[in-house]
């Protein structure tokens, strides 16, 4: 990567960090959770103003066009303050689909400007999630069926739904206010909600159809998986910092507990995990930006998520242990990080799943 790119990324990181810190850091996440568990539309707007939502959208379509690595920078900053806004969903999935399938649709501009949030509903209970598997039917402008695990459904303006059309997959747009669209929110460990959507003859606008939908979805999922990994990297960074500060100040036996060798060695191991995860995930995002083979991109994304989940799980759980009893209370922020890590790990596949996917992809490449 050339150095001017690096400078762009640094500036982007600084502006995102300043924005989040000014808004209250992780304290804001706690407030939003206690207020009922959704995100702040104002924050989405503010993020849009610094251009972060359109980082991966080409300039000609109104984005910044600086690519996936920049998305990773934003995602890390989101993770550091465990911001509940569906930023990764918007950059990776919503815009990831639309910029590939219908870059001129007015929703693209609205997503980039933060005026709308459109979660992507692509999975269904009882199916693998590939668009061809979808039982949710789209015919004659109407959608019928159900979708599951929709991140950011609560408070969104509508949905991008992958469904089965008359002759293959389709991508349709459903406004949240439309009759026949119901959303059941499933409360997550971090206070957010995952939506279970059901449609019964719900009017919808067709955006794209055919194989292109399958391909775009698969690519967008690769992007989003890697971005979710970056979010976990940011989360792990901050969880580790909080813990390190804590063991430097908490005293027992007349000494800071961080002076005990066993805790020092644990802290060192967590730090190494964090550094390895950061280096691995950043390398993946930089490579995915220029890689065109969808199979390779998928393998890279799996590598990133597998690493990030392994690190985040270990770091947040050990962080609670190193905090001792207060770590188990809701009064310390470290628990918020543990809970957020649970949700982000489960979304789009955990480390075991992605190791399996990585291995499979590698075997397929080897055979080809």
């Amino acid at each position, binding site marked *: 990567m050339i150095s001017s790119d690096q400078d762009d990324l640094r500036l982007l990181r600084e502006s995102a960090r300043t924005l989040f810190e000014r808004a209250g850091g992780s304290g804001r996440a706690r407030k939003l959770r206690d207020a009922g568990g959704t995100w702040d539309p104002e924050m989405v707007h503010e993020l849009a103003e610094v251009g972060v939502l359109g980082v991966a959208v080409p300039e000609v379509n109104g984005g910044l066009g600086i690519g996936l690595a920049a998305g990773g920078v934003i995602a890390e900053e989101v993770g550091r303050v465990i911001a509940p806004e569906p930023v990764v969903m918007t950059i990776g999935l919503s815009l990831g689909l639309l910029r590939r399938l219908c870059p001129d649709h007015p929703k693209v501009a609205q997503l980039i400007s933060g005026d709308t949030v459109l979660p992507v509903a692509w999975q269904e209970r009882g199916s693998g999630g590939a668009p061809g598997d979808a039982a949710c039917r789209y015919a004659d402008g109407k959608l019928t069926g159900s979708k599951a695990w929709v991140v950011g459904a609560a408070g969104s303006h509508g949905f991008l739904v992958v469904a089965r059309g008359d002759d293959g997959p389709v991508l349709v747009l459903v406004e949240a206010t439309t009759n026949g669209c119901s959303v059941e929110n499933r409360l997550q460990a971090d206070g957010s909600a995952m939506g279970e959507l059901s449609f019964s003859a719900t009017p919808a606008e067709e955006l794209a159809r055919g194989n292109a939908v399958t391909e775009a979805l698969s690519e967008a999922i690769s992007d989003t998986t890697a971005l979710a990994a970056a979010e976990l990297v940011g989360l792990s960074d901050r969880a580790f910092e909080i813990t*390190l500060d804590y*063991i*430097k100040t908490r005293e027992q036996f007349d*000494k*800071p507990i*961080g*002076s*005990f*060798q066993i*805790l*020092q*060695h644990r*802290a*060192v*191991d967590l*730090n*190494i995990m964090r*550094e*390895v*995860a950061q*280096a*691995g995930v*950043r*390398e993946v995002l930089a490579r995915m930006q220029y890689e065109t083979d969808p199979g390779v991109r998928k393998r890279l994304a799996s*590598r990133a998520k*597998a*690493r990030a989940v392994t690190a985040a799980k270990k770091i947040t759980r050990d962080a609670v242990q190193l905090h001792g009893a207060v770590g188990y209370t809701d009064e310390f922020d470290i628990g918020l990080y543990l809970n957020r890590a649970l949700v982000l790990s489960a979304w789009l596949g955990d480390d*075991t799943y992605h*190791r*399996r996917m*990585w*291995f499979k992809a*590698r*075997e397929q490449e080897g055979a080809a």
Partner: protein
Amino acid sequence: MMADWNAMSDTEFRKEVRHFFETEYPEELRHLPHRPKFVEIEHWHRKLHAKGWVAPAWPAEYGGMGLNAAKLLIFYEEQQRWGVNRGRDMGVQMVGPLIIKFGTQQQKDYWLPRILSCEDIWCQGYSEPGAGSDLASLRTRAGIDGDDFVINGQKTWTTMAHDATHMFMLVRTDPGAPKKQQGISFLLAPMDQPGVDVRPIRTLAGEYEFCEVFFDNARTPCENLVGELNKGWTMAKALLSFERIFIGSPSLAQNALGQLESFARCRGAFDDPVFCDRFAQAALDVEDHAALYARFADQLKRGETLGADVSMLKIWVTECFQRITELMIEAAGPDGGTISSLQIGNVSVDVLASFYKARPTTIYGGSNEIQRNILSKAVLGLPG
């Protein structure tokens, strides 16, 4: 006529180095599982010497290649990639740079050419039975008697002392110094004399790579003191910073992983989903480590000095290397205890060779526990 290697592009330089190794390095010496005696690699050393490539890091005026950090890294990467044995490089890696930095003109003129030609073969006398991780507690004494230092004591874990002509050593020259790090000096001593007794130590792998060395009134001329008297500790430490990235390089683990994969395929181990997952874990540990290694290497290439945090690489990669070699044993099943080469299909593997090779990596170069102590204080700023 010296080439200006640093003026070449990285790609050009890499090509040149790779070409030389691939065409000139003897096939039968690639990826040697043991440390060779000098006679085994003498022929290769002569070629390297004739080419002027024995000491890539030394300044050209002393007969080195004068490579900058970026080029040096490429040189070592290519060396490891092709499985080129490092040879008996203690002289080039350890004592040469020390003489260049702290030695007198006379010492430079005398010793440096002999290091390059391997007329003198060096071993490192640092560790002692009571001074391993706590090296500064060393007790081997050297007192002045006329024009000589007289040495008494014992060194241990001295790699290849039984195939060395000289030892560079840390000795205690002032037992009354207030701190144990003070009163240590850096001496050069000939091995071939009545007061030096070398006893090779058999390793777990059944080989003789390191020795105990006993000193009973052994002598070395006072002119073989390098640097100031009683200042040896600081000098020896000053040398270590650049080398620390190499001890954390991904190559050992990468090579072991490649071996594991071809062996596991022949064994049908990939039919077992449990094995697949553990293989994937190990492979990803190596890939992500390589990403972190690249970050530190870039730092070097930009001309920055590496901080204490570089020892993260060593901890991670050595432990990962061990896990890979343990997986190899698992994949071998009932052959997991066999200490000679196994022929499986068209792959020949010595299952335990890499296992044994991996064991000391977490101990040498500062044990991983010592590295963790250093990281916790120097990088994380933890107290005590």
